[in-house]
């Protein structure tokens, strides 16, 4: 009986610690995802500013240079844009975000902001595109700054909360 209790306690503490680690690593991954996104937006802005490249071509070129989840996201957008299948840029952009970026560590708010970017892309003149992308970049910058400022404390908090929470539950159950 005692053995079962001990094993149960170990399991609870390990899983709670695991959860703590998971949350702290999610936070770090979110920062890294946001940084990758910032890089993509800077490249897109460069392509539009330097070569006036239309969106399908620019997105396609970006997808070739990316790796992993963003590669799939960008190539799917480029493919759908090239189909000219009766959908607006905005709806293609939003649908692909929902479908292809749900496995990233980006928060709901991050995905919402990215979705809003699609509402203004392609609209009006080149200055408008640059300004829209600049505005979005400043939003990402702020988010990254905010997250990196608290990342140390938060990871420490998540890790220790995990361990402590596990011990706390074990004590109560005993």
């Amino acid at each position: 009986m005692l053995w079962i209790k001990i094993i149960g306690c170990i399991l609870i503490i390990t899983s709670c610690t695991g959860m703590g680690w998971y949350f702290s690593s999610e936070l770090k991954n979110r920062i890294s995802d946001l940084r990758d996104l910032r890089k993509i937006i800077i490249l897109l802005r460069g392509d539009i500013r330097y070569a006036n490249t239309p969106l399908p071509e620019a997105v396609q070129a970006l997808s070739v240079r990316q790796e992993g989840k963003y590669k799939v996201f960008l190539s799917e957008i480029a493919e759908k844009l090239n189909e000219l299948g009766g959908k607006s840029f905005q709806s293609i952009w939003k649908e692909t975000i929902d479908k292809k970026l749900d496995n990233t560590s980006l928060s709901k708010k991050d995905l919402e902001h990215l979705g809003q970017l699609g509402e203004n892309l392609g609209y009006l003149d080149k200055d408008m595109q640059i300004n829209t992308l600049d505005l979005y970049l400043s939003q990402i910058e702020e988010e990254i700054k905010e997250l990196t400022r608290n990342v140390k404390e938060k990871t420490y908090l998540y890790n220790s909360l995990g361990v402590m929470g596990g011990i706390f539950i074990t004590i109560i159950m005993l």
Partner: protein
Amino acid sequence: MEKKDELLKIFSLRLRTMLSKIEFDYEKLQEIRLRVNAPMLVIYDNEEYFLTTLSKLTKTDTDSYIISKNEIRETMEYISNYSLYAFEEEIKQGFITITGGHRVGITGKAVIEDNRIKSIKHISFINIRLSHQIKGCADKVIPYITNKDNNCFHTLIISPPRCGKTTLLRDVIRQLSDGSEKRPGLTIGVVDERSEIGACYMGIPQNELGIRTDVLDCCPKAKGMLMLIRSMSPRIIAVDEVGSGEDIDAIEYVMNCGCKLIATVHGNSIDDIRSKPILGKLVRERLFERYILLNNQGEVGHLEEIYDERGTRIY
């Protein structure tokens, strides 16, 4: 089939479906006109037709399909590849050239800044003019614009709009560049300001322009001609629709540095061109050695007359 798909892709889904049901000979299709709250018109084999709601072409406007504002908006989205900003300069001029070299004319409400057209908004009228590559249409012309030493004359193709001057120019370029058994090919530099000659897609010409042709796409003619001379050392420079003062200065430069020039211009006769203030100067100075006049009496691209530098008719 490919040409058909390529063209249909620019229309809104509804129009695309309707047009795909009609069996066109795309070589005879000349223009498609879309106007908000008006019937869709198709110019086919030199005749005007209405598109009906049942996807048929008729001569009368009863039961014709009326274009909505949303369809024009959707069509514009596809024409511009979801990126109107990438066509700012073209929109200022009133037309966009799309894949395949077709010209899409647009009008709506002009946005003016400092007395200049900044853009066009509320685009409500679209005219799609199809570009056709007719291989061999320059067969008659080639002997008149080349001499025994296999050199080409400075040539000006004069014609009113829709008479096939770009089509002729394209075939002249192809034939001179490829050469033949009797005539070796010549290196040609093409400045394709509106992407109509080569119909370049991502820098690669979609129309056949010959194996010795270098194309500078989307570049202003005046700057492009000088650039090509310096960079690609062509024997011939070819440009479409010359007219501005800058163009004429560049043409003079090209003619004086040993290159031959083939250009096209809007007009009805040599006198028309002679009376133009800037281009007329080159005609009066007899810088052009051949003038080719086209009209569309009978068929598009009908060769009317060819003159030499003195104005003597040689065809």
